[in-house]
């Protein structure tokens, strides 16, 4: 004899279909056109930044860069649902969210240009720098949430990682502990269907990534990750639940990586360009623009003005980046410890002595 002892469901939410038509009543914030325009601006700014970053990399003026083209709505929608006092713990493809929260394009250019001063955010000082070992930042987000909980602060940590990251132990461990301790943390999977060359189907046999939360005892759900309104609504609800003591949520945002993994990759080696083409009809800027145009909230002139404004802002940031003097060699010793140990001071002095010999005219 056997009984069913548990049953689970995974919901999928969307507000706009791929043609930009509302599929039902929109969330309350969408009634205010300013909110939607702000989201659209955030998406556009990210895409313009992205294009500039790739152009700089292609001309040898930026390091390897991970484009977020096609998945901007996950990042921007998530960040738009946060309060400024919440803490964002991003992976390396979340420029959209970082920009929306006040990280500057100059800081991002510096970071991707290899200058760690780019992580010294003037804006959101408690937001985390990018953690490059995939998934290793998931426990950090849980740790921030634990700090909030221990101090009884009504704040939430928000962590984004990719579909590939969900196969890592750090995500499993972070989800598990967040569940056991009911931590105020929201995990967002930006499921862009690829982890470098590995397609989603080969990442896991699980039907959804959202269902992984269920194994850890909390809510997991899917959202259309190309629908920024839906992302904001679903992530926003999860954040407020967490703030009220309702514990964590895992949100799988379904999107698509339209570009290469990074500028060091050529995706045509493992994926047909033809397979990508249909996704250009799904992408988040087009979708929101269609909705805004259809509902008379956005015109061609508005679009042109916005493009001009964003292009000018990003170009100015790129200029400032290119004009930023590089750090001197001895800067490598500046941030290993709060105070320089004797051995490191000796190594720094050695470096300075050698560079004086190598370049006697300088100084």
């Amino acid at each position: 004899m056997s009984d069913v002892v548990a049953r689970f469901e995974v919901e999928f939410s969307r507000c706009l279909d791929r043609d930009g038509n509302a599929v039902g009543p929109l969330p309350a914030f969408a009634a205010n056109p300013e909110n939607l325009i702000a989201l659209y601006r955030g998406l556009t700014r990210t895409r313009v930044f992205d294009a500039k970053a790739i152009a700089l990399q292609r001309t040898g003026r930026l390091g390897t860069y991970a484009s977020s083209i096609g998945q901007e709505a996950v990042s921007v929608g998530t960040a738009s649902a946060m309060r400024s006092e919440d803490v964002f713990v991003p992976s390396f493809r979340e420029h959209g969210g970082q920009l929306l929260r006040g990280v500057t394009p100059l800081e991002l250019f510096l970071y991707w240009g290899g200058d760690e001063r780019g992580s010294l955010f003037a804006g959101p000082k408690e937001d985390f720098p990018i953690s490059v070992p995939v998934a290793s930042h998931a426990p950090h987000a849980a740790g921030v949430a634990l700090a909030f909980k221990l101090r009884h602060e009504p704040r939430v940590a928000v962590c984004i990682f990719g579909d590939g990251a969900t196969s890592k132990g750090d995500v499993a461990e972070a989800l598990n502990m967040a569940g056991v301790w009911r931590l105020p943390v929201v995990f967002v999977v930006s499921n862009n269907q690829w982890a470098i060359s590995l397609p989603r189907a080969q990442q896991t046999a699980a039907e959804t990534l959202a269902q992984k939360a269920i194994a850890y005892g909390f809510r997991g759900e899917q959202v259309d990750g190309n629908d920024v309104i839906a992302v904001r609504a679903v992530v926003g609800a999860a954040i407020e639940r967490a703030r009220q003591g309702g514990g964590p949520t895992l949100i799988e945002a379904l999107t698509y990586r339209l570009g290469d993994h990074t500028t060091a990759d050529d995706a045509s080696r493992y994926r047909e360009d033809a397979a990508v083409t249909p996704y250009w009809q799904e992408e988040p800027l087009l979708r929101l623009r269609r909705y805004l145009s259809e509902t008379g909230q956005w015109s061609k002139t508005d679009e042109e003005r916005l493009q001009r404004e964003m292009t000018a802002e990003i170009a100015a940031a790129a200029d400032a980046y290119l004009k930023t003097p590089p750090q001197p060699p001895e800067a490598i010793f500046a941030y290993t410890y709060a105070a320089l140990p004797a051995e490191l001071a000796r190594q720094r002095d050695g470096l300075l002595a050698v560079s004086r010999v190598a370049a006697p005219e300088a100084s």
Partner: protein
Amino acid sequence: MSAAAEMVAEVTYRDACRMALRDALVRDTRVFLMGEDVGHYGGCYAVSKGLLEEFGPERIRDTPLSESGFTGIGIGAAMNGMRPIVEIMTVNFALLALDQIVNNAATIRHMSGGQFGVPLVIRMATGAGRQLAAQHSHSLEGWFAHVPGLKVLAPATIEDARGMLWTAIEDPDPVLIFEHVMLYNSGGPLAAGAGAVPIDKAAIRRAGQNVSLITYGGSLPKALKAAEELAGQGIEAEVVDLRTLRPLDDETICASVAKTRRAVIVDEGWCSGSLAAEISARIMEKVFWSLDAPVARVCSAEVPIPYPEHLEQAALPQVPAIVAAAKGVVG
């Protein structure tokens, strides 16, 4: 010195570790302890016994079995203003958290352009001698001492077990504390007012002129015993307790070797690519011309630490081997 500081109690190394934890929890509300079985069970080496009753489950936090996860949680909490103390049962399991320790805790100050430090303390047991077999008995602290961004401590005395954590918890950078399993039951006097001690200086535990025995952690009692035996044979050994494995206190090491002109390094780690090798190299670099004999090393045999007692002991640095090595360099 106050009257309270002069009062002396007989305590074990384990007690001293516990007093240090308790103190940190009392002094600073940002401090909490987290690890496997640290609560009701009292820690796998009984170090945190009684703390749950006193501080409650929020601050004495039993974790699921997730070394990488709770080390990462400690990092995140430290970056957000807390002062976590993470206990990992033994260094053998710290390998599960290597990415968090080496790629994250040690690099975040650098990777954030100085925006974030990681004021995290990670304590763990290390070493052999309790017949726990290869996967519980290794001495891997030398690996961690290789990594810039970390500070690595190996308290070998009651005072250091009591005082190093104090200084470590106030340090703005990640600090790893290695407690040798054979020290927990060792006992000795501790002044009631014993407090913070430096974490960047080695200490001379016994003065001598003829040879320097350079060691740390669980090997310190063996080196002291060897020095005693050597004294009986007319050789005065100086015993240097490294205390801190990163940064190494070259000054104390080299001053001792410059004086004795001979050095034997005693390290329970494996000798190839070891801390003992690093110390030997520094002696060559800095006091080569003072040496009267090649530097000698007494390390563990390069095998997984065996289970049966006689084989386990055969694999570890022992007093007779230290004595023999010292006599070898004294010639």
